[in-house]
């Protein structure tokens, strides 16, 4: 029900939205909760476990009851708190956790079964039989107990992440936060003021209190306007600071477009990482309920929420209001309501010395002990020394006092301190380096104190930052004492709720204590108290007070559970913003990418790179047909392959050779200029790290090649070895992977092809095997290496990347004219398997140089990384699994990678395992499947027949063990 003349909503901007399909009228500035209350909707949801009817309970982000689903289809957003969702025209909302409807919910039968569903129910009931858990119990429980549901479709919304930096971050824009921001802003400091609400001002917008002789909301609006005019202040409304992290880093969720009808290209949310030199937490306090029988009825709200709906939204949440309190603050709810013309039945105060009022009856020394009205409050029962009585009322405003919002101060392991004068935990100073606390969050509950602390903490921060404060006067404001007498739960029969979201009652906590879950952390996990989306904001203190009482301890000794980030729920989509779709990982394209795709090549990912799998020719219908053809092409004519993805590192300096001798097992300082050499790199623990070819371009100049996969790690390794182990060496390196487009030209006709293309004459004298020299291609300076990964007479030609596309097309055209063409990764793999060349399929981190048959490459004349440890017993010798070749000899002609090796007649079980296959391919050259494998003492077992079992795919083959070099073992084709 709207109250004329009250509220900050724009009465000139009416709009409408839907709730469960029904049209609801509202005004701009309303939340879904305020509009529903104005429309007299009291039932808005069902509770998690018992499916109890629930109504709006609060007015902030801590709301425990009014969870709704916003939107529909793929973009629907479950578990949105109706108290923070701003309305816009056409907004679509639905209630949750009910079936078939909110009003008639079949699972409300759970409520009748409540005696069996107490704390630990799941643990005790569904223990046995064990296999029933996955198939029966869990699905049933998941359906019955729940919150909103995801759409299970791809999320179409945009999310954003962003970084911000400031001198001072002020968290919360109530009186303390505004005063802090104003003080620092006027002094010229770079300030960010973040507040989770759409309208800054905090409690000032929900109260009738005055600041500086005018309404608090007006004062707040004036300060916000001044701050908005300052270049050095960034206002971030709708932004919840969700976590405090190391070195002044804060996480914050900005709700950018949840309130907009037309979002355009705006992200829905933005997750900020804010780095602040100093921060002031001005997050205010949260009013806590009192536990009594049926205290979860729709129509029972916190006293401050009732004031907020009245003063900010112009909504009377009931017609006949009763207040139940243990403190003075809540009496203002009654005063405000009376002043606005709303009937107040009574204020029931648990204190014998509660203040009197001329405007409403105050029943002192009384406690509300029951509430009736299943789908909406009808009456309450209260108890005094004289006995019990009832009051007809449709709204009960409850206040058990206030809990300072200490959460962020606990995010770095800080523990709050119990303050008995306000019966609440307050922040322990110094809990988060660089962060101080002001106002209600610090237990300072009067407006005057909040303003004063905000100003003082800002001045202290300015002093730390070395900024001179400017003149700011402290505005006048009320400075009332906060009088409270703790009351956590009203004794009596029946269920009295502590955690509304997770349906945890006083009984559950008492039962946990009785079953010896006495630690607050154990109680939490046993009862699930505090584990719901509100993370115990409404229930933690009440629950631990009940636990303290049940275990005969005090509250400080009982302590709180740990508060962890996030302060309020953050969607995974916001956390992962920026990595949707193409943002997941950079795509690296070679210069030949467009031409390869143009040739119909399917591209496969190789790390971040995309490489052609094969180049289908007309008439080819399977990859194997293309692959076989490409292998034959390289063996018989000429093939072209882009090898630019291999890491290339330019190494220069007078100690370059010495340095390479240290990182490679073999010697490079003796390599002649104009020659390349295959090198093997170990990790310091003696296992193989990477391999590749390095060429000496000049006396003090090498270019190293790494595998595609290890390009980054090798660069890091070289930097490590240089900076951490041998910084005195005069050597420097830089990646030139991106600088050069490099293509393999492989096959018997490769030299002919090149001679028709390059300005120089390519001969065995100028480019002998493993030779390298500068070359000119159509006037462009490049490099030509006589190296081979195919076992054929082959070259790699490199030109600056800008010419890569053009050169690839040219090479391809020439090759095709000679009966050759391009070949892809599949053919490349078969070619190298035929030759027994290793890749990271073999050097996978658990093999030594000895294992791959390159033990002699570890020079005995010098030290190198990994040498000492590679000599450990156990890293060589006949117990090692060694690289071998495998050829099928039985009826099954297929080998698969990852299959296990067994002796011919052994049982294929784990204890009999002799090794495993690493790479396989069909060799059109040898017309057979070929496999590379590691086999125990394999080099001594050439000729032996082994059983190759792929348990996963159900393939068993008989293979003969052979040398891993299947084709041209003398290397005549490559060298000749």
């Amino acid at each position, binding site marked *: 029900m709207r109250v004329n003349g009250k509220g900050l909503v724009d009465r000139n901007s009416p709009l409408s939205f839907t709730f469960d399909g029904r049209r609801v009228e509202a005004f701009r500035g309303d939340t879904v909760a305020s509009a529903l209350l104005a429309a007299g909707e009291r039932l808005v949801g069902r509770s998690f476990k018992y499916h109890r009817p629930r109504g709006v309970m609060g007015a902030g982000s801590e709301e425990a009851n009014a969870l709704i689903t916003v939107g529909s289809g793929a973009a629907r957003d479950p578990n949105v708190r109706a108290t923070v969702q701003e309305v816009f025209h056409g907004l679509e909302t639905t209630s949750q956790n009910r079936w078939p409807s909110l009003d008639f919910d079949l699972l409300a039968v759970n409520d009748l079964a409540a005696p069996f569903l107490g704390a630990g129910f799941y643990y005790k009931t569904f223990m046995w039989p064990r296999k029933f858990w996955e198939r029966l119990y869990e699905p049933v429980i998941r359906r019955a107990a729940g919150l909103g549901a995801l759409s299970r479709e791809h999320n179409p919304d945009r999310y954003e992440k962003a970084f911000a930096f400031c001198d001072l971050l002020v968290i919360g824009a109530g009186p303390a936060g505004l005063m802090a921001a104003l003080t620092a802003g006027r002094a010229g400091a770079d300030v960010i003021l973040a507040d989770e609400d759409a309208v800054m001002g905090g409690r000032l917008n929900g109260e009738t209190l005055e600041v500086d002789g005018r309404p608090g909301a007006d004062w707040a609006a004036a300060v916000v306007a001044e701050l908005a005019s300052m270049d050095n202040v960034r206002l971030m409304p709708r932004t919840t600071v969700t976590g405090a992290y190391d070195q002044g880093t804060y996480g914050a969720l900005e709700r950018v477009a949840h309130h907009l009808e037309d979002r355009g290209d705006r992200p829905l949310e933005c997750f900020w990482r804010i780095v602040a030199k100093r921060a002031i937490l001005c997050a205010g306090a949260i009013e806590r309920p009192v536990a009594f029988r049926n205290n979860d009825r729709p129509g029972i709200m916190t006293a401050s929420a009732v004031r907020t709906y009245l003063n900010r939204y112009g909504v009377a949440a009931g017609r006949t209001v009763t207040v139940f309190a243990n403190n003075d603050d809540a009496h203002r709810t009654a005063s405000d309501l009376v002043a606005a013309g709303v009937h107040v039945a009574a204020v029931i105060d648990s204190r014998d010395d509660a203040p009197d009022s001329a405007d409403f009856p105050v029943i002192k020394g009384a406690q509300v002990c029951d509430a009736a009205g299943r789908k909406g409050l009808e009456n309450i029962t209260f108890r005094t020394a004289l006995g019990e009585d009832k009051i007809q009322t449709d709204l009960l405003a409850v206040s058990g006092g206030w809990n300072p919002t200490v959460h962020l101060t606990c995010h770095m392991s800080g523990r709050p301190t119990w303050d008995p004068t306000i019966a609440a935990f307050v922040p322990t100073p110094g809990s988060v380096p660089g962060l101080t606390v002001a106002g209600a969050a610090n237990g300072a509950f009067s407006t005057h104190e909040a303003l004063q602390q905000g100003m003082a903490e800002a001045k202290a921060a300015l002093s730390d930052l070395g900024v001179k404060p400017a003149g700011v006067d402290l505005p006048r404001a009320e400075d009332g004492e906060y009088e409270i007498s703790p009351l956590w739960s009203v004794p009596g029969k029946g269920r009295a709720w502590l955690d509304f979201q997770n349906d945890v009652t006083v009984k559950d906590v008492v039962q946990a204590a009785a079953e010896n879950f006495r630690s607050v952390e154990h109680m939490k996990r046993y009862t699930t108290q505090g584990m719901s989306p509100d993370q115990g904001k409404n229930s933690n203190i009440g629950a631990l007070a009940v636990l303290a009482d049940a275990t005969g301890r005090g509250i400080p000794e009982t302590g709180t559970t740990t508060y962890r980030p996030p302060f309020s729920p953050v969607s995974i989509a916001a956390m992962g913003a920026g990595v949707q779709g193409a943002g997941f990982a950079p795509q690296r394209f070679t210069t030949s990418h467009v031409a390869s795709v143009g040739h119909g090549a399917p591209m496969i990912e190789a790390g971040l790179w995309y490489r052609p799998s094969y180049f289908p020719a007309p008439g080819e219908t399977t990859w194997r047909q293309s692959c076989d053809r490409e292998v034959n092409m390289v063996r018989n004519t000429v093939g072209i392959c882009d090898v630019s993805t291999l890491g290339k590192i330019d190494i220069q300096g007078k100690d370059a050779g010495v340095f390479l001798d240290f990182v490679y097992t073999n010697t490079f300082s003796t390599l002649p200029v104009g020659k390349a050499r295959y090198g093997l790199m170990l990790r310091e623990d003696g296992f193989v790290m990477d391999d590749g070819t390095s060429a000496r371009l000049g006396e003090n100049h090498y270019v190293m090649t790494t595998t595609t996969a290890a390009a980054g790690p090798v660069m890091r390794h070289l930097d490590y070895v*240089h900076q951490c182990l041998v910084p005195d060496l005069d050597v420097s390196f830089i990646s030139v992977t991106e600088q050069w487009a490099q293509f393999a030209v492989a096959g018997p006709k490769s030299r002919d092809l090149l001679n028709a293309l390059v300005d120089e004459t390519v001969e065995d004298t100028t480019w002998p095997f493993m030779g390298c020299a500068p070359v000119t291609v159509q006037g462009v300076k490049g490099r030509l290496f006589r190296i081979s990964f195919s076992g054929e007479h082959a070259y790699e030609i490199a030109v600056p990347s800008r010419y890569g596309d053009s050169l690839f097309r040219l090479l391809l055209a020439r090759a095709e004219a000679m009966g050759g063409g391009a070949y892809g990764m599949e053919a490349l793999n078969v070619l190298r398997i035929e030759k027994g060349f290793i890749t990271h399929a073999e050097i996978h981190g658990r093999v030594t140089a000895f294992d791959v048959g390159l033990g002699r490459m570890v020079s005995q004349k010098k030290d190198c990384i990994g040498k000492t440890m590679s000599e450990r017993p156990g890293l060589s010798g006949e117990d090692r699994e060694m690289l071998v070749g495998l050829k099928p000899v039985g009826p099954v002609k297929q080998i698969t990678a990852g299959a296990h090796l067994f002796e011919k007649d052994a049982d294929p079980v784990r204890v009999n395992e002799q090794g495993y296959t690493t790479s396989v391919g069909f060799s059109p050259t040898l017309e057979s499947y070929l496999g590379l494998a590691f086999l125990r003492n394999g080099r001594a077992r050439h000729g032996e027949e082994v059983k190759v079992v792929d348990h996963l795919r159900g393939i068993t083959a008989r293979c003969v063990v052979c040398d891993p070099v299947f084709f041209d073992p003398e290397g005549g084709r490559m060298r000749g």
Partner: protein
Amino acid sequence: MRLTCPQCGERDRREFYYVGDAVALERPAPDAGDEAWEAYVHLRDNPAGETRDLWYHEAGCGAWLVVTRNTVTHAVLDVVLASDVKGGGA
């Protein structure tokens, strides 16, 4: 978490690659014996308190850094270039 790179200034943790104990700087001589090598390659303390470890400013200047920090308070106490620690220098 933020580290102050001596070259680049204060940077977010995402720019750095973490390795572990800065004992990696003290590579034993090839003939130092099994125990020294075992300790160098494998044995690491895991103190609640001050540690000295190696980080690589991989997404920044490419410097290897020796970072002294407290694993309990998360305070970063010192960041220096590994090449300076080794007495060399770039």
